[in-house]
């Protein structure tokens, strides 16, 4: 078998066969895959990998997945994938891919939706859009815990909450459909008032917005109202649904 090995070019452009080191169930519909890479390059928080699946007749499907882990996790990356009903790649990863399986990936890619340590930094995530923001949050926690970072994270219901146990006081959560019993925090979608409040003291740095198209459209509009210059608002949209 011809396989790429670590001897080859250490460039993000090269496909490599990596191994699933572990799988964690985050929510009933979201799993995190820890992938061990022969050719590992430290990423910038916000970057993504590409995953390519090949059937035995040569048919291929290829998708992008944001890196959830900090670049301090050497030799591995964590990808957090939401299972979409009838989704070609996400269903395969959820229903077929197991620990020890091989998977073809390349990365890290993109240098626009990345956090290079600018401060202060405001993060706005909707649903699985929290994934690249989590890489930023984790990296800050490991390297610069005093750096001003604030995250607003919108989820539909308690069972959609990803990384719940890891969120700290930097995070303000809102439940857009149903909140857990006894919840005293925000309920409803992220709105202008929430964003204006969160933006206080943060408009001199970048804001990262990630989620469905509808989430990104409205959240980035509110950021402009809150005083962010358009050039400071960086957005990433996770595909067709909205």
């Amino acid at each position, binding site marked *: 078998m011809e396989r790429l090995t670590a001897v080859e070019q250490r460039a993000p*452009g090269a496909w490599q066969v990596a191994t699933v080191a572990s799988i964690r169930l985050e929510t009933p519909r979201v799993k995190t895959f820890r992938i061990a890479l022969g050719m590992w390059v430290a990423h910038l928080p916000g970057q993504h990998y590409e995953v390519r699946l090949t*059937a035995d007749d040569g048919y291929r499907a290829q998708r992008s997945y944001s890196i959830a882990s900090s670049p301090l996790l050497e030799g591995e990356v964590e990808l957090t994938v939401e299972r979409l009903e009838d989704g070609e790649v996400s269903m395969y990863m959820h229903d077929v891919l197991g620990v020890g399986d091989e998977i073809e990936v390349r990365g890290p890619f993109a240098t626009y939706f990345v956090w290079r340590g600018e401060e202060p930094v405001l993060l706005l995530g909707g649903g699985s859009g929290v994934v690249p923001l989590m890489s930023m949050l984790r990296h800050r926690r490991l390297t610069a815990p005093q750096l001003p970072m604030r995250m607003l994270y919108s989820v539909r219901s308690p069972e959609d909450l990803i990384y719940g146990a890891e969120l700290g006081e930097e995070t303000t959560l809102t439940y857009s459909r149903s909140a857990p019993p006894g919840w005293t925090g925000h309920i409803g979608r992220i709105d202008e008032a929430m964003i204006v409040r969160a933006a206080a003291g943060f408009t001199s740095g970048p804001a990262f917005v990630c989620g469905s198209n509808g989430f990104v*459209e409205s959240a980035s509009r509110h950021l402009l109202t809150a005083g962010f210059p358009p050039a400071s608002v960086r*957005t990433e949209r996770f595909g067709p649904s909205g």
Partner: protein
Amino acid sequence: MGGFVSRGFTGRRRTPDELAARLPPGQYAESGFPVLTAGPTPEVPPDSWRLTIEGMVGAPQAWSWEEFAGLPFESVPCDIHCVTKWSKLGTSFGGVSLDVLLADAQPRGTHAMIHSYGGYTTNLALADLTDGKAWVVTEHEGEPLAREHGGPARLLVPHLYFWKSAKWVAGITVLDHEEPGFWESNGYHLRGDPWREQRYWSD
């Protein structure tokens, strides 16, 4: 490479044979029209919209919305290919050919930088903008182009990845050399030919 097979993967989103030949490598057919933008969606009312051609040209040009509406309008059936892997097959746009727009400007250079409202830029070789390969479009599938898709007007260069088809287009600057635009400075390929899978710098 070549030999790797993903255990247990059969593929659910297979494209019918008659369409498969129209899909560049790594792309899948998407029936919707996803939105991809680097930042907030700018608001450009048609009555303040202008399109300019300047730089290394014999005669700089500028059109208002009304003047632009008087130019020869074509319908452009095409397939479009986004670098994030979706392709939309069999769609259509309506607008004015760059051949028409560039004719009066008399370009003297080899490349162009496209500027958009909101600050986006993208670079193209003039050869990719001429000979019936590029348009400034104001309609999509017979309707006015929606704001989130670049309305009132966007560039359309269907033979290259869709980030080249700059939304909210404002101007074309003709250059005598190649300069990277926004995504091209951020890791994406200078030309972006989907059939050669020119996604990133390293491709």
